[in-house]
């Protein structure tokens, strides 16, 4: 059942407009990281990608709230809900992560650091959203 729910949350996340914009953003991010390979650009893109994920969540706020409410109504456990929320949020940052990963091939070790920071911050963000909705 958990697998089904996760798959559904992935599919639902792809339907949301925020994910579509996040994909476009990740393409731009990749080109930018390819063009400019210095630390300050990396730091700014990191901050920008976090803002982008927040913006995409705000754009899909209603969808997310509805989704979590539906899951609550069917009586899902809190831990499962957390996992699904994290999956839902991570899907929209997935392409950004891919952009960082490809960027790591051209750039220095700093890209990995940026990637790790991005993943951690998104995880914290997921927790905040889950607790906020609940």
């Amino acid at each position: 059942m958990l697998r089904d729910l996760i798959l559904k949350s992935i599919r639902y996340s792809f339907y949301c407009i925020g994910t579509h914009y996040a994909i476009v953003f990740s393409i731009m991010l990749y080109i930018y990281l390819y063009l400019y390979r210095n630390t300050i650009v990396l730091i700014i893109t990191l901050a920008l990608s976090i803002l982008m994920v927040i913006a995409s969540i705000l754009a899909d706020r209603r969808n997310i709230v509805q989704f979590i409410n539906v899951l609550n109504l069917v009586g899902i456990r809190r831990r499962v809900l957390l996992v699904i929320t994290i999956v839902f949020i991570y899907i929209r940052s997935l392409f950004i992560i891919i952009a960082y990963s490809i960027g790591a091939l051209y750039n220095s070790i700093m890209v990995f650091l940026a990637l790790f920071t991005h993943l951690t911050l998104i995880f914290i963000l997921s927790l905040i959203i889950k607790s906020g909705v609940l």
Partner: protein
Amino acid sequence: MNYFLYPYIFLLFPILLLFIIIILVINRFKGYIEEELLGEIRIISPALKIVKLLFSKIINSVEIIIIFLSIYLLTIMASFTTSYTYSMKTINLDGEQYLFDVIGVSNTIDVIDKIRFTNYTITIIQVFNTITLNINNESLFSYPLLIECSNSVESISNTSKDIEMLMDLCKFLENHKIILNIDLAKLLQEITIGNSRYNVIGMDIKPLLNIKFIPSLYIVHSIGSIGGTAIKLEDINKLAIFRFSRDNIEILCKDECNVKIVVLYIESKIKESSMLNNIINEYKNIFDYVIVRHNSVGTIYSNIFVPTYESLIGFLLLIIISVIILLLLSGGLIEKLTYIVSKLWSIGISKELYNASVIFTLIITFIFAGIPIAIGNYIGWLNSFGFLTYISISIISIAILSTQLTRRIHIAKPPQGPSFTYITDNYMDVEKVKRCLTHSLQNDDLFYLNESEVLKNSKYFVLRLEMIYRRALSTIVSSEIYVDSYDNLWKYLIDIDIWSIEELSSRETKYITSLALSKIYGGLSLCLET
């Protein structure tokens, strides 16, 4: 790793601080607009109040904070990633005399401190401040030309006649000596400029008039060309040649100095390509523009920087990123403003006024937010390309947000029709109803009760109220309330008619009518039910 030490990143903190201060100030005055009592009829449009309201609502939203944080980050990024190149142009010098290998041209006198007089250079300074020569009690204005040749320039052989002439001039020129055209020199032995005296040397300097380095750049005073014709000094008697020295510069340029400095570099017989490259690079940093000659092709390098293609691609990417973020967040912003839009709609604000207010609010918001960027640009933390990026993103943001925010007005519910029937079993004398309604409309903020009367008929009463709409110049709303009775029930039919000398659109008329109707209905129901 050195980039960590760069001060640009610290720009973020003052920006955040400014933002927080603005939010605190806005919060302090929150609700001020709604609480303010409206005065008498004024010509002042309520647009500014709407702007205030919208500004306070927009600036308080998390969406706009994220938008501005993103724009600031994009601006900083644009500032960082920009690289410039010299603007470059090639000209055909086929058939022109080979007078130089490199020329540096500048229009500021300060350049003379920076010039490192290397071998094989000739410095020419065209001073546009005139000097006065007194000949037989007549005054003749002359333009000074200062020349200096480096010592080793004499070792250059196989140069053109023109260069040899310049070298001859250099030989004759000494301190306190001036070269004039031979005809003029016959009339003058000595001239005095300020407190300095100069001995006059006469030479045939007429060929100087036609020496040109490139089209429109002559050895004598020239200020460019119009329609292919060079504007230059045409009378050789108006040319006075001095030796280039600081003393002479001080004498000739007392208050302000309007000059053109031309430094010629002539390559020696032994071709030293590294030397030539060094000279080109050095001149590029000093002069307004540098001309390098390679056989019959001249290349003009201007110190006007132009962004590289890479920077332009980066700029385009930043614009796309900003559009993505704007499109994502505008929805949330609209949701927050829908409530206000509905309220504005219900009090009769027209769509045009609302659109103008939204655009004006956004412009003000972006101007305020641009202040830290402008300061950063002024003190050198951000470059002008970053500032340009901010302006471009601001214009796009205003366009996108205003389109999104104004489109929403179509969703607002249309107001109700111009007549209404109210039936009640509570009886009240029509005179009392009139008094009660008059009292309820007395201090109304939208309508001023101008006239009220009761018309009696054998079958029914008519209560007539004439009100002036306060937010317009001369819009009068006339309402007639027909009072009739059936058995124990009382029927009040409210009919509204509107009259105005202003050109009100049908939509505006409809709003004002609905507004008047709701006011009278509210007043009537309150009078009859309480």
